[in-house]
């Protein structure tokens, strides 16, 4: 009996189908064709939902600097909890490339930009950044919702980043940069940002409880808590970890 190739070999097949030595086997093996169909389906899912939401952060990690595009400088560092809300981030939302084919409706994604000198660049998950860095945010939505951005630090402090006032979350209908921003508080250690997109109003008190329950247990908990629980049904969420260094 001829054994079917592993997933790793089928990955190689997908990368170069025209010259693949597996082509004869695949042509005669219904099981492998079904596996390849499923792999292609997941590849389409990546191109449709994962790539557009993450390419900025991934590509940003390859280049450490990015031209400063339309940010206005803060007058002075402030606590992350007291982030100003009057400054617009003018980064244009990035859309999929010309060869992108797929349906709209990707889930929530958030891109965090950090100012470095006279430049601004997207921050990768887990990246080390200055503990006093200025941050801006851009979101991508699957559907209009009530949006929250909060952060949790190693002391269990939950800070609201957006909206800076009001309760229930900001009504957001389109993807794009968020008004305002934040300046980190200067304390070294991990800080995790959560973006929550709720189909109905979600009070800050409820969100704070969820965030503290998930990530309020010190540095290890902050680094590990990739999702919040006890959110309204139908909510989507995204998260990103910052490692603040002096």
């Amino acid at each position: 009996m001829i054994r079917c190739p592993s997933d790793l070999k089928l990955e190689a097949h997908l990368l170069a189908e025209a010259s693949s030595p597996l082509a004869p086997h695949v042509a005669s093996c219904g099981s492998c064709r079904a596996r390849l169909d499923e792999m292609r389906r997941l590849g389409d899912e990546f191109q449709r939902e994962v790539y557009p939401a993450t390419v900025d952060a991934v590509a940003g990690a390859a280049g450490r600097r990015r031209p400063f595009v339309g940010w206005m400088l803060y007058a002075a560092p402030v606590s992350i909890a007291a982030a100003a809300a009057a400054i617009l981030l003018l980064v244009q939302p990035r859309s999929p490339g010309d060869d992108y084919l797929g349906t709209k409706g990707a889930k929530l994604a958030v891109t965090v930009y950090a100012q470095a000198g006279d430049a601004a660049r997207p921050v990768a998950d887990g990246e080390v950044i200055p503990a006093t860095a200025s941050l801006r945010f851009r979101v991508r939505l699957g559907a209009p919702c009530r949006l929250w951005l909060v952060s949790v630090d190693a002391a269990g402090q939950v800070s609201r980043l957006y909206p800076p006032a009001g309760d229930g979350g900001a009504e957001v209908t389109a993807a794009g940069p968020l008004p305002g921003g934040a300046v980190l508080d200067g304390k070294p250690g991990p800080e995790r940002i959560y973006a929550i997109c709720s189909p109905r109003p979600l009070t800050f008190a409820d969100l704070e409880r969820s965030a503290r329950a998930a990530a309020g247990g010190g540095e290890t908990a902050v680094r590990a808590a990739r999702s919040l629980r006890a959110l309204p049904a139908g909510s989507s969420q995204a998260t990103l970890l910052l490692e603040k260094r002096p």
Partner: protein
Amino acid sequence: MGDEGLSDQREQAARLYRVLGPAVYRRCLRLLGDREAAKDATQEVFVKLLRDMRRLEERETVLPWIYRVATNHCLNLRRNLRRRGEEDLEPALRIASDRPPDGYPERELAQKVLSRFDARTQAVAVGVLVDGMEHDEVAAALGISRRTVSRKLDRFLENAQKFIGRSEP
């Protein structure tokens, strides 16, 4: 490096991500079983891979390297959940159905069993039992000798059977 060079690097990174990202995503989804977690992990893994961008251009060797980095990263995520007492959130890994389980007594590889072993042994067990790979292929993908694969797998099977036997009611 000037802005132009950095821009070229970002474009190259985005192009590689578009081509090779699907393989990372599929691997992460297979090990994590959750689309959101796989999406995050894919991004994290690719940032790691980009530290050696030239290696990503080497089509002959890039896939085993991707397999190794993604596997280690995702198994580490699973270990973190276990440490936090959230292993129930991490689905068991189904044993490859097209081959006998090589003496492993269950049809699934539960995190509580996997977590009893060191990182490399976990990767070997997943490669052989879950991915259904030959020992040679696992050795090449993980960058270790075939003998090491056999030795670690034998130790895994022996101890896993003892653990499962003790756990049965």
